[in-house]
């Protein structure tokens, strides 16, 4: 910004600007067509009553009624909304804690380093649908994996346990992925800091609190955003395992969009939920990004 030539030579300045925009153009065009336009169109469609009953007559403009109904009358929506909050609040810290532990272990272990990393990482490689089928077997009462410990553990058939059961699976699925970022983060930390700390007589706990964790902060910020969006994005398993049940105890917003849009052909309500989902994710990421970013020390 202190380059004097740019400030004095306006032609050159403009050329740079054009070049910048030119380079951005492909992604701007791509984003517009595949992201911004659909978002705008969903927002527009959310103002209409558009379901099976309007198939013959065409969509009917109803203003914000879809939104009002969602927040005042739709019990399934509020259930899915709360479930999503719980899943985000639990899976984000849990995945991070597990990932840090795994990363430190995988980084320190001497023998079989590769094997350890692969075994931690492999759940990430599996498609969500395959994961769902594996855990469906694990959770099957009587003759599933857990069923052999206690035949009457019926985690998926019970409204009080189904969400916990899902959370365990989601953490299992994504912790390995998060671990990769922490392994990279750990390897960026200068070993001299630990040596200095050791000379000063710091113990392992102090070193983790004062050196490792603060220096992993950029990774943590990135990973928090990833896991937070994942908490709203990972719904494929519901299709296989519970269809959001029993009694919508495991339903989530994105799956509710699917149910409304496709199972029930209710495009109006599905669009409204989509817009709400986008708003939530946008707010969460920007708050996080703008408040946390300042306090980061980039090593």
């Amino acid at each position, binding site marked *: 910004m202190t380059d004097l030539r740019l400030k004095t030579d306006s032609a050159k300045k403009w050329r740079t600007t054009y070049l910048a925009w030119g380079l951005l153009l492909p992604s701007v065009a791509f984003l517009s067509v595949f992201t911004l336009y659909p978002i705008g169109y969903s927002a527009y469609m959310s103002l209409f009553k558009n*379901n*099976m*009953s309007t*198939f*013959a007559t065409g969509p009917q403009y109803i203003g914000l009624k879809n939104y009002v109904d969602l927040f005042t009358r739709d019990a*399934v929506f509020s259930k899915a909304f709360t479930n999503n909050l719980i899943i985000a609040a639990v899976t984000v810290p849990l995945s991070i804690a597990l990932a840090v532990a795994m990363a430190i272990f995988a980084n320190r272990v001497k023998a079989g380093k590769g094997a350890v990393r692969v075994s931690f990482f492999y759940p990430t490689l599996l498609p969500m649908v395959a994961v769902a089928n594996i855990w469906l077997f694990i959770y*099957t*009462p*009587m*003759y599933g994996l857990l069923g052999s410990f*206690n*035949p*009457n553990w*019926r985690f998926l*058939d*019970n*409204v009080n346990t189904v969400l916990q059961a899902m959370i365990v699976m989601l953490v299992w699925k994504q912790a390995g992925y998060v671990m990769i970022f922490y392994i990279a983060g750990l390897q960026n930390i200068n070993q001299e800091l630990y040596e200095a700390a050791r000379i000063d007589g710091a113990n392992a706990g102090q070193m983790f609190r004062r050196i490792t964790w603060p220096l992993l902060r950029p990774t943590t910020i990135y990973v928090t955003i990833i896991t937070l969006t994942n908490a709203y994005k990972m719904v494929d398993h519901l299709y296989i395992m*519970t*269809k*959001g*049940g*029993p*009694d*919508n*105890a495991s339903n989530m917003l994105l799956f509710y969009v699917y*149910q409304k849009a*496709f*199972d*029930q*052909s*209710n495009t109006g309500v599905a669009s409204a939920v989509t817009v709400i989902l986008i708003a939530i994710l946008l707010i969460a990421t920007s708050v996080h990004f703008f408040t946390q970013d300042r306090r980061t020390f980039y090593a």
Partner: protein
Amino acid sequence: MRKLASLLLAALLLLGLAPLAGAEKVIELDMYFPVSVGGGPDALISALCEQFHAENPGIKVNPVYAGSYADTRTKVLAAIQGNDVPAVALMFSIDLYQLYSMGVLFDYDSFATTPEDQAWLNGFYPGFMENSRLGGKTYGIPWQRSTIIMYYNKDLFREAGLNPDAPPQNWTELAEFGSKLVKKDANGQTVRYGVQIPSDKAGYAYWMLQTFTLTQDGFNLMSDDGTEVYFDNPKTIRGLEFWKSLSDQGIQAPGTAKWSTTVSDFLEQKVAIIYHTTGNLTNVRKNATFDFGTSRLPADTSFGSPTGGGNFYLFKGVPEEQTQAAVTFVKWMTNNPERVAQWSIDTGYVATRPEAYDTARMIEYTEGFPSALTARDQLEFAKAEFSVYDQGAVQDILDTAIEAAMTGNKTPADALKQAQQEADAILADYR
């Protein structure tokens, strides 16, 4: 140069010949179809389509496996909205009102004009036509049609001191026999339940609820015109309460039971009595390692069961030759008693035409395996499967209510009363 010219000439000739060779133009149809039972009926459908093409070289039907019934509805509706209309699809019989209200269906009567065609249309079991006709016209041709039957494990009946040839005939006996069939280990943990009737949304919870209303003087959940539902009727509430009471007494596992694992639970002998579609009969027969029996559903004040399963539909918006080809295909599939009989033998679905039961192969089969007749014999008590306008939304409401009741989240009465209000709000648009 000359070589090139002659090559070109040859190519041109070949190109010119191509239309001649194809004078017998092949009409290709994509047919979406669902599978909701075990035992691999998808392979059977593919084989039938190939055989049809061999006998009718001018028409080729490509079967497209589309998942469950709900998935198939989703896919076909998406295809219609994307202007990629299929000429024919095998779909849930209960999608009739929804498809009809969209105005996308052809009726068969307009195409079946000869006396022989009329005989074809009128030759199906009347029970199956309840979900296939509307306003005097035929919109669905029955194919993989079922009733719900009771499967029971005769070995476990003997073990519990029950007569293996006398399955429960009424609700009281169902509960009584069921509790005798429960087995616990030394710690008091139940290792085998007496009864399991699937109650999850991913399956067909609403359909199973019908088994508890139709057995009360044939009371059904909806009006004949598909615009009214009777969720909060005392009979419906009583039916759901009885179903839930089986869990409360420990005869059935607590919570919801999965449609998809109920048959394997039965085959693993983790439950002694199940309700399931007759479409799984052949699957059970092939995989059961024990002596099993089937029976019509236990009665309360009457016998009863909903019908179920899939029909062939014709869709508007395709060239007429495709529709004609589709009619030819559907007729080929459903008009020949031998073929209908073989399909029934291969799957367990009810043969949709009475004359199929007079064929030599069917007589021989049912003599060796009388269970194959259970579902058909029950047809005389069978009523239409739950079917209303805006099926997807209303069915979801009822399934949710059943899950809420079975998991103890709400009482059956509360759950059904709320479901009634929600369903009324939707159906008001169609009255």
